[in-house]
Every structure is written in C-alpha cells, then in structure tokens.
C-alpha cells in the first residue's frame, strides 16, 4: 500500500490575516478549523485525527474538548517549524491510507502582535534550537534573517545570484497579493522598491523578509473513498515526502549550507506522483525569505543548483509566467501562518477557486514547507 492518491484535502479554512488581532492564537486556530470542517461538509465531531501545528496554540485535547470528538484515533506533534504543515500532510496521508482515520484536521493559529512571540525571541524557546541559543545568540545571531543570511551570501558568491533575483521573488509575491483581498501587503512593488528597502541582515533587505502576522489556517484531509462524498471536486495528494539536512545543528555547522532537506524529499515525492517538475502548473513555495524560494526551486529540480536566480528572473513566477508561484502572495505578502496558507491556496487553485489569481486550467500543483533551519517537505496535488 502506498500513499499516492490515498488521501484528499477536502476542507480549507482561514481567518482574516491581520496585524494586532485581539483574538488569542487558539481562538484564531478554532475559527479556521471550523471553517475547514464546514468546507469539507462534515461535523466537527467527525474529525478522528488532529495534528496541531506549532507549540503556541491548541493541542489535540483542546479540539477533543471543544469539538466533542468522542473517538480520537490519532494525534501527532510535528516539531519542524514551517515544514510542519506539509509534513503533517504526509502523516495524515499515512493514517488515512492505512485506515486508522477518516478525517484528519491540520490546524494552526498564531498571534504574534503580543510581542513575546516575535521570531527573534520565539525560536530560542524551541528545544531544537539549543545550539543556536547557547553558542550563537550571545554573539548576536538571534533571528531567522541573521541565521539564514550567510546561506544567501554564499549562494550569491558561488553562483552569481543577485539582488535583482531576490527582488523578482518579492515582486511576484506582491503582485499576487494585490489580487487577494485576504493579504496584508497589497500595494504593488518594483525591483527598485525592493533594492531601496532597508537592510536587515545583509544580503536580506526588509522586502526579502516574510511578514509577522496574526491569523489561523486549517485543512481537513480525508481518506480518498470518503472524500468522494464531499462538497468539492476532489484534490488528491499524489506525492508527498519529507527530508532533513545531514545535520540538524545550526546552519553555520552545515557541510553545504546551500542545499537542504527538501533536496532529499523531492525525488521521492515526484516518483510517488509519477510526474516531473516540468508537469507542475502552479507552485506554492515556502517563502520565509526570497532566497529560500530560489534555493528550493533548485533543490526541487526545477533548475540546476546555482541557476535559481536566472530561473526566477523575467517574470517566470508571475501569473502568466511558466511557473506561477505563491499565487496568494505567500509569507512575503499575504501572511505568515507557517505555510498552512500555501496548502490552502494550492487546494483553492486546483478546485478552480483561485479568483483573480486563478492559474487557468491548473490540474497539478506543488506545495513546500521549510523550517527549523533546513527541514523540508513537499506535496504534489492533482485535481480529480
């Protein structure tokens, strides 16, 4: 038994994405969860598997408690930062393919406006960051922008990747966010705006960095036979895989800091789905930083290592380009909910519900997750 086409994403839900929400992370998570459950056409108590994302909002028992789930058959915590939502798709597909569960809820909520949960402070509370916290934080290497910057710098020096290449990613995401009523940053930007934005951690400028935002997002994943009774055209998980870098230690310690876990996962997912990168019509790529998109496109096999910069130039990632990417605006311009919004958007595209950002005729797409300094995951989805 394999995972190919064994599970479908049957429900999607998102709150409004904002800054300064007065709702708690759990309230946002519950709101998104109920929307996803309703979208799937099921009752909250029909959920029999729960995978809460992250450590700042509800745990499985909170959903049992609030949703009246009488017979929870599976729960898991996947502690890999922004890679967790797509890794959770793999976990969900596994328990759905094997008959353990019928409907698995993957759900996330966050409220960073309170201040105590900002990226710089937050990661040092995560146990897997203990090397960074002990040995690098006291030297001033605190936040993801600083920690990831040397990877981008090395890519620039080894391969000639430029500021304009980073800018092309930022401009594409913003152009798509401008079409999305639930995106936080909707004013279009130019390459010049990108270049002129203030430097945060060289080579990352402000417009290379993802947003901090409040909100919740959730999906329901159902067994493929159960999903046949759902409200929407079925969106199958055709291929899914995860990968970890050779070392989980801080990025400074990686043998090759320009290639990460998703490079191992990509061939597995493409082989499972029986497709190649050239078949992908729409991509939602985890974009904590502009550079992360360029590097993942290489690791996924869309282009060779070092060619990601030229690959994204000339509008390839924009609607109408060869590989429309982050059609919702991404973490860079829509909102940062650890990439669960990327899964939601891919499902929307494959249902044909992409609104003004719809990729015409999209039948096959890809979503990635990236977190914890190098863990990666991807899911390839196709519509029925």
């Amino acid at each position, binding site marked *: 038994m394999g995972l190919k086409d064994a599970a479908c994403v049957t429900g999607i839900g998102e709150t409004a994405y904002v800054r300064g929400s007065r709702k708690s992370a759990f309230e946002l998570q519950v709101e998104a969860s109920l929307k996803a459950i309703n979208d799937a056409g099921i009752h909250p108590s029909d959920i029999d598997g729960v995978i809460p994302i992250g450590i700042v909002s509800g745990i499985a028992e909170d959903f049992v408690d609030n949703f009246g789930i009488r017979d929870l058959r599976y729960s898991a915590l996947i502690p890999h930062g922004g890679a967790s939502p797509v890794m959770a798709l793999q976990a969900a597909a596994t328990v759905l393919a094997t008959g353990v569960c019928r409907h698995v809820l993957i759900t996330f909520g966050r409220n960073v406006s309170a201040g105590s949960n900002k*990226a*710089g402070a937050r990661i*040092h509370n995560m146990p897997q960051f203990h*090397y960074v*916290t*002990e*040995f*690098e*934080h*006291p*030297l*001033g*290497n*605190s*936040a993801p*922008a*600083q920690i990831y*910057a*040397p*990877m981008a*710098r*090395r890519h620039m*020096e*080894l391969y000639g990747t430029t500021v304009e290449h980073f800018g092309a990613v930022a401009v594409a995401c913003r152009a798509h966010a401008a079409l999305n009523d639930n995106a936080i940053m909707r004013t279009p930007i130019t390459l010049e705006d990108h270049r002129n934005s*203030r*430097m*945060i*951690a*060289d*080579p990352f400028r402000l417009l290379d960095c993802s947003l901090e935002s409040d909100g919740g997002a959730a999906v329901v994943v159902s067994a493929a036979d159960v999903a046949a009774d759902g409200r929407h055209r079925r969106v199958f998980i055709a291929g899914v895989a995860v990968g970890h870098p050779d070392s989980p*230690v*801080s990025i*400074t*310690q990686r043998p090759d*800091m320009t290639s990460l876990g998703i490079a191992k996962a990509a061939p597995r997912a493409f082989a499972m789905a029986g497709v190649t990168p050239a078949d992908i019509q729409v991509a939602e790529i985890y974009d904590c930083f502009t550079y992360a998109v360029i590097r993942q496109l290489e690791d996924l096999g869309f282009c060779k290592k070092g060619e990601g910069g030229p690959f994204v130039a000339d509008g390839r990632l924009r609607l109408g380009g060869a590989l429309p990417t982050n059609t919702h605006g991404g973490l860079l311009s829509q909102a940062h909910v650890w990439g669960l919004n990327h899964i939601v958007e891919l499902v929307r595209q494959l249902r044909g519900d992409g609104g003004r950002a719809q990729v015409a005729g999209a039948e096959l797409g890809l979503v990635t997750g990236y977190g914890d300094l190098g863990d990666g995951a991807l899911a390839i989805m196709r519509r029925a």
Partner: protein
Amino acid sequence: MSERAAKPEVVESALSATYWQGLREGRLLLQACGVCGALRHYPRLLCTACFSDVVTWRAASGRGHIHSWTVAHHAFHVGFRDELPYTLVTVDLEEGPRALGRWQGETPRIGMAVRARFETAPAAVELWFEQDGLAR
C-alpha cells in the same frame, strides 16, 4: 541611551562547560573523540564517527578561512542595538570544524584567511575573528 542593555546570557551545560572555560582562558577548544580522535563542534554527547561518548579537548589554532558572513543592520535583541551594524562570520577552521564569530575589520570575503581572538564582554568572553597576516 546611558544605560547599556544586557546581551543574552550564556547558559552553559555540562557538555559545554569546558568550551566556555577555554574561551575565558583565550583558547578555542574543540571536542576530540576519545576513541577515534574525530573533532566535533558545537559540543555534543556522541562522536558521529564512532558514537563514543568519551571526550577529550583539543585547542584549535584559531586559523581558518571565511565560509560566509552577514552584516546585521537590525537588532533583534536589544543588547546589540548600540553595536549596529555588526558583522558575523562563519569560519572553516583549519582543523575541520566550523565556528561562528564576530568580525573585526573590512568587509570579509569568502575564502579570506582569518585568525581568532577573544574579547571579554560584560557577561562572557566572545569569539572574534580578523583577517590573518595583518599586524596586531
């Protein structure tokens, strides 16, 4: 600003206490496997070559080459606000492992030969690097 905000404090563990004691004495100490001799950094429980937990310590020369670098222009911790902009370098030590340090000097280049030095900060000793071959 008259009062200088504190930097994050170093929280040592039993595994790393020797490393930090070395820095305070002006030495960059690396773990060396007590069985097979393989070097490792940052300090951790097991040798990844032979899985022994027997540890000895070896002083690195402090010499190496720049692997990559960044310049921080935004302080994500208030303790660094007065030091902006500051440069961080990752260094391939000549013994093999890689180290992170603060940087003193002109803009670094990948591959540049560097050497370590140690600066006493209010809460701890900091590892710094500078271009090798320049007069001190």
